[in-house]
């Protein structure tokens, strides 16, 4: 091959890389634009946020963010945090021993138990909604954050067990064997050997719990009204607020979305594994 031909071929490869990159960036920007627009609208004044045509160049202001934070938004955020942290903790406390019993020391009928667990995750909420509501009403748990903690634990526990199990299955068998020979009890084996080794699994599980609990809306809107209302419920207040509140709406939407966005971006590797319950690594 002559030097010239080599050069044109390399030139072609570079051109194709530039072309495909441009297309990929265009697609990514189209998909990301609504997220960006939400953040931008939240940094505008109300007049700029509702202007025709849309304001594109502007000096950012934190006034909308300050306003939603100084008014009544923080209690909603605190409720979201309580429901999320409480249920994540419960998922780990219940899920770690269960995953252990389904992987390292497999009980009988492991496959049936796994199948049953995951089927409960995909049972529509219609199946248990009405009785749970009646029960919560009778136990005075309506508008009580405990009701959401209990429900979010149920939503996330099956995923959590599957996910934690997939990490436990990857542990080198010899390691657990050695501990067993040394006479470690099951509890000791789980807390001292298994748990420290599957911290990425615990991180992935926590991330999935965070995404599904923090963003959950259906139970939140039906089981809470004011005291225990979580951040998506705060946004409901903007449904009919036409016209004058776009900056505040966008500021609240951005603040409400931020925890999951940041966690998901930081833990991208855990994200995909978590969403597929450990099936895709």
């Amino acid at each position, binding site marked *: 091959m002559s030097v010239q031909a080599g050069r044109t071929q390399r030139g072609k490869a570079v051109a194709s890389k530039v072309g495909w990159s441009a297309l*990929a960036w265009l697609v990514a920007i189209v998909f990301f634009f609504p997220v960006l627009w939400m953040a931008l609208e939240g940094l505008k004044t109300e007049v700029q946020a509702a202007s025709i045509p*849309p304001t594109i160049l502007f000096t950012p202001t934190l006034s909308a963010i300050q306003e939603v934070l100084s008014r009544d938004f923080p209690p909603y955020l605190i409720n979201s945090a309580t429901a999320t942290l409480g249920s994540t903790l419960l998922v780990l406390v219940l899920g770690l021993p269960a995953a252990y019993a389904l992987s390292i020391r497999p009980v009988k009928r492991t496959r049936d138990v796994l199948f049953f667990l995951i089927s409960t995750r995909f049972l529509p909420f219609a199946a248990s909604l009405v009785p749970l509501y009646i029960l919560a009403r009778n136990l005075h748990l309506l508008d009580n954050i405990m009701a959401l903690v209990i429900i979010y634990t149920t939503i996330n526990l099956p995923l959590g067990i599957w996910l934690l199990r997939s990490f436990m299955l990857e542990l080198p068998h010899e390691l657990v064997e050695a501990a067993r020979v040394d006479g470690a009890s099951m509890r000791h084996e789980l807390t001292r050997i298994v748990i420290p080794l599957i911290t990425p699994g615990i991180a992935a599980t926590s991330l999935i719990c965070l995404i599904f609990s923090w963003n959950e809306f259906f139970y939140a809107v039906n089981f809470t009204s004011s005291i225990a209302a979580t951040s998506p419920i705060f946004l409901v207040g903007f449904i009919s607020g036409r016209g004058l509140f776009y900056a505040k709406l966008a500021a609240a939407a951005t603040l409400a979305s931020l925890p999951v966005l940041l966690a998901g971006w930081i833990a991208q590797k855990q994200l995909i594994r978590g969403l597929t319950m450990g099936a895709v690594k």
Partner: protein
Amino acid sequence: MLPALIYVILVTQLPFVLTIFYSVQSWNLLSLAPARFIGLQNYLDILNDPSIRIAIWNTIVLTICAVAISVALGVAIAVLLNREIFGKGILRTLMIGPFLVMPTAAALMWKDTLLNPLTGFVNYLLTPIGLGTFDFINRFPMASIVAIEVWRWTPFMMLIVLAGLQSQNQEVLEAAEVDGARPLQMFRYITLPAIRPFIELGALLGSLFIVQSFDTIFMTTQGGPGEATTNLPFKLYLEAFQAFDIGRASAIGVLAVILTMIVATFALRTLFTIFQVEARR
């Protein structure tokens, strides 16, 4: 394991039994009349109710359209991001934004600041072709909901398919290239079969989530105009929490479970096959 199993049974299975029990009673929380046994009357009522049929139909349309389009787009974008391009990491980070944003927040942003006939940014972009004041959500409600769901779920599909593409055997691809296979042939006969389980997994998980979608509909159309975007979850919400008709809502719940079970049995079987393939590797 036992505590986790008991927990799941208590919060999901027991309520379902109660749902069946309530579904054969006439019981409205708004009326003072006590609950009484009426046999299958609730079922006969809902099966003869045209609005239930509309809700079932809307659920099917929304799920099939949103899943099919997001899978197709997800595969295309995953293939694009798997090429030699500039800034892969950043592109992937931007792409998963829509999936992580709180669905209620995103729905409101779409309604108020993107597809708003007065101030929406999409409307602004479409002004040159005469759609500057076109009310997308009112004129094409179902298509708008599908579009928002596609925007949210395409990144999810893309992540799963991208993981599949990256686990592909590079040597096979290189060998095919040496043998003179054309890019399209390679995709059709080598890549596609290799990523098929990943596409199936994405489609199955996606449909199990989208079949339950509620947040976007609640925030943008409230099931309307008329009943154009009322799906089964939204119908259930109306019966249970607007009409407080416990018996009827429970009957809808049982119906939703039966419909989901038909899909889920098939889905879970496929899921297990995928896990077994994964385990054999």
